[in-house]
């Protein structure tokens, strides 16, 4: 007699299979980052070495600097834009011409980032911001700010407005209503928005390349640089590092944000 596999066991295996499929490109990258010599038609590199990783971990590779530079840049952009766009989105959401403001917020995404950067480059050159880290920061602020506004505008719905107004009639000042009512209500949304803005900045290439003129060595720039140099194993190492924060953020989202929102 044939034994049927219980449903929960099947589901568990399906989840593991899906997780394995999603993780496989990352595992492959990590594997490749420890490779050396991979002549055609070998299926895998012929030699393996911990040297790339040890150079990174001992600070002898410029990738370590790129990693911390990218973390600092994207972290800074994400903190600033989350705070700014949350406030601006409130003004947009309650404005009687909300639709037009939102339409304007979508405009930067009509063009590809490279074309947008080419359009903006003149102004960055005039402001002495081209080829400077500050210029890249400003450029990333410009590209992430509209996204933040679009993302947070949906938070300001009728329910939130009623909660805020109720707090006022109970005696809250605007500051108290923000601190004790809006902030706790928005915590999950703010965290998700922060992650998404961080990721946009983290993977940004076009603007960073054109405005930064190579002076802002983010990890994304490094990956492309190594690929162009055909430095396959370092490209894999940079790619692995590039993929790590999104994986960590995804895990945090799943563990702490979605579970509370559901």
């Amino acid at each position: 007699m044939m034994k049927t596999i219980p449903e929960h066991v099947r589901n568990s295996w399906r989840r593991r299979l899906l997780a394995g499929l999603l993780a496989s490109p990352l595992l492959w990258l990590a594997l490749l980052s420890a490779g050396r010599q991979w002549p055609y038609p070998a299926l895998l590199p012929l030699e393996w070495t911990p040297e790339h990783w040890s150079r990174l971990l001992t600070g002898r590779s410029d990738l370590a600097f790129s990693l911390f530079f990218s973390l600092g840049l994207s972290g800074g952009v994400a903190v600033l834009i989350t705070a700014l766009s949350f406030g601006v989105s409130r003004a947009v959401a309650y404005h009687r011409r909300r639709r037009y403001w939102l339409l304007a917020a979508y405009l930067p995404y009509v063009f590809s980032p490279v074309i947008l950067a080419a359009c903006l480059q003149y102004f960055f050159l005039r402001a002495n911001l081209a080829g400077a880290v500050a210029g890249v920061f400003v450029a990333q602020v410009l590209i992430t700010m509209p996204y933040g506004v679009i993302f947070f505008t949906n938070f300001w719905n009728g329910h939130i407005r009623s909660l805020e107004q109720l707090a006022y009639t109970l005696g809250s000042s605007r500051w108290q209503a923000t601190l004790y009512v809006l902030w706790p209500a928005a915590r999950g949304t703010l965290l998700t928005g922060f992650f998404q803005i961080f990721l946009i900045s983290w993977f940004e290439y076009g603007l960073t390349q054109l405005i930064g003129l190579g002076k802002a060595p983010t990890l994304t720039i490094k990956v492309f640089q190594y690929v162009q140099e055909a430095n396959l194993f370092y490209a894999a190492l940079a790619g692995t590092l590039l993929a790590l924060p999104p994986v960590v953020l995804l895990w945090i989202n799943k563990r702490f944000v979605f579970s509370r929102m559901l």
Partner: protein
Amino acid sequence: MLLEAVDIAKRFEREEVLAGVNVSLPASGMLSVLGRSGSGKTTLLKILAGLESPDRGKIVLDGEDITHWQPQKRGIVYLYQEPLLFPHLNVFENIAFGLRLRAWAEADIRREVEAMLADLELSDQANKAPHQLSGGQKQRAAFGRALIIRPRVLLLDEPFGALDAETRANMQTLFLRLAEAMQLTAIFVTHDLKEALAMSHRIGLMQSGGLKVYENRRDFLNEAGAGVQQEMNFWLNLFETEAIAPSNPR
């Protein structure tokens, strides 16, 4: 009069919602306000609470012109149809909210909130999150949160509209008991005729941007436009029809 609103007008784009409304409310007095959807009841309450500004008119509270005062300075609490409990706070903390804003001592907060919870028959729910409560319990907690700060005027915007008939009747009784015990001054907006009559002997009828106030139930019952006669005729006709020809048991 504790509260007086004179010649209040409000227009939203092309629509004139309020066209010179006058309301007066004595201390510890209650006014029921009836009106169809879109008749301007909510707009009037929001103007009184300071959540909307009037295009014209004046609001006087206890002799002071509060027309341009911020809502937090007025001492007028506006209660929505939805209980709107703060989702991140449990029942105890929801009720304590206004006292914490006023920086009361912890022991005083505990004493007041526990007394209010007992009054509202919610003592055993104090540590529950809002989503764990029934509709009636949520509304009671919302009352407690408003009443504990002793508002000068309480504005209720169809507070029982979302409740089932039995819970609604219980809530009406509870509210009347609390209103009397605390000598509340309140405006109670509803679209339910029976509820309006049950909550106050003074009844206001909002229509065509105006508010007509009837000082007693008899005047209101005799008003042709109030819909009371139609309601009475409906029940009388039903009763007579059923009395003459009992319904088919099938």
